[in-house]
């Protein structure tokens, strides 16, 4: 196959810090995060936008990083699972997942937590339906979902405002 595209330089902000990388324009943001920026907390499940394992926040919106081309990350503010804890202090949602058994094998966990954090930013006091909808794009094959649901319920009201 003919090689036409050149790698481009993309500048963005990742977890509050300026970042820059080189990639082919249609490289998946998921691969760039993991392989160029070495942020391997973001996982790959299906690679087709069905499972939510690669969920990240881009300009405040939850997205599947497997479906974002590197070029579209130019200028974006990106938050991954690595951006939630501050120093040694975990985010309230992370703590709730530990306390309530919301994590099992761990592959869905980063995406699940990002989805929950994003949900609580949009709906600080979600009802059951809003929690279910907020998590509906994230598949888990271990927990049966109830412990994840309970973890999110437990985190309600505990998310601190952060700068």
């Amino acid at each position, binding site marked *: 196959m003919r*090689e036409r595209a050149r790698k481009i330089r993309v500048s963005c902000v990742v977890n509050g810090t300026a970042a820059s990388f080189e990639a082919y324009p249609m490289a998946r943001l998921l691969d760039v995060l993991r392989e160029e920026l070495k942020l391997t907390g973001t996982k790959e499940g299906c690679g087709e936008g069905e499972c939510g394992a690669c969920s990240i926040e881009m300009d405040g*919106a939850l997205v*599947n990083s497997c479906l974002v081309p590197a070029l579209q990350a130019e200028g974006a503010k990106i938050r991954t699972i690595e951006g939630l804890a501050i120093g040694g202090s975990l985010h309230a949602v992370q703590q709730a997942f530990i306390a309530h058994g919301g994590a099992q094998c761990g592959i869905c966990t980063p995406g699940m937590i990002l989805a929950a954090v994003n949900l609580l930013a949009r709906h600080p006091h979600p009802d059951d339906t809003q929690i279910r909808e907020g998590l509906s794009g994230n598949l888990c094959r271990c927990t049966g979902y109830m412990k994840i649901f309970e973890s999110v319920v437990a985190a309600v009201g505990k998310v601190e405002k952060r700068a």
Partner: protein
Amino acid sequence: MRAFLPAYEMETPRDLAAALERLASEPGAWKPFAGGTDLMVLLEAGKLPHKKFLNIWNLAELRGIHVAVEHVTLGALTTYAEVQRHEILAREFPLLCRAAAETGSVATQNRGTLGGNIANASPAADSPPALVVYGAEIEIVSAGGTRWAPYASFHTEYKKMNLRPGELIRAIRLPRSHAGWKQYFRKVGTRRAQAISKICFAGVGRVEAGRIADVRVALGSVGPTVLHAVRAEELLRGQRLGSVDLPAAQDALSAEIVPIDDMRSTARYRRNVARNLLAEFLEVLAG
């Protein structure tokens, strides 16, 4: 097999005029790329034949929801999340909001766009039936100018549409003419969230003095394009609600849809469900 990334070019035009110039420079060569929720799936599967993409995601001219007296106009890059959040759409065009809420997950709804859904031309898309029943029109722009086309006849056959090389969908316009109409939407899939439709039904009806004064019905996933059920509509129009000949209307609908067996469902199941959804729609009209 995964795609060979160096084969794929992508450019970001600085504004709409630059994008249209690029499209005109090599007609058919450049494909617009919006939220990527369909194209990136094909790329990863090694099934993306196009090699040159124009990143239109940041074009302000294709964004925004504008409310005027007669119409609501949605920029082609309006996402499903934006559709759901809009108060006037929620009040006057609830079927479009339902379709948006039932398309993919939160993450997909943040990136998937109305224009992309139209241009991707999947017969299983959920917003097209709502757009057809609301009498949507689409604004198509090119370096040569602007034209408007009725949405109901935009898709001509499977994955084919009334869009010429060099043209781009700029906006979707909905006439604000359904105040007081009864409205019904139902998507049937394998799972409540996320699943692609087995069948999708949108219907609106105006009831006057116990009669169906006017009615519009459209379905997804029962043919090569979104299907406007004109024969069923004809049969229902003018009928008294208490004495609708339901089996005749269901037969008319069944005769005009052309469902197939595929990985998501069977033609027989889709035909049966289409009949049932028409019955449920009539209950809503009578309710």
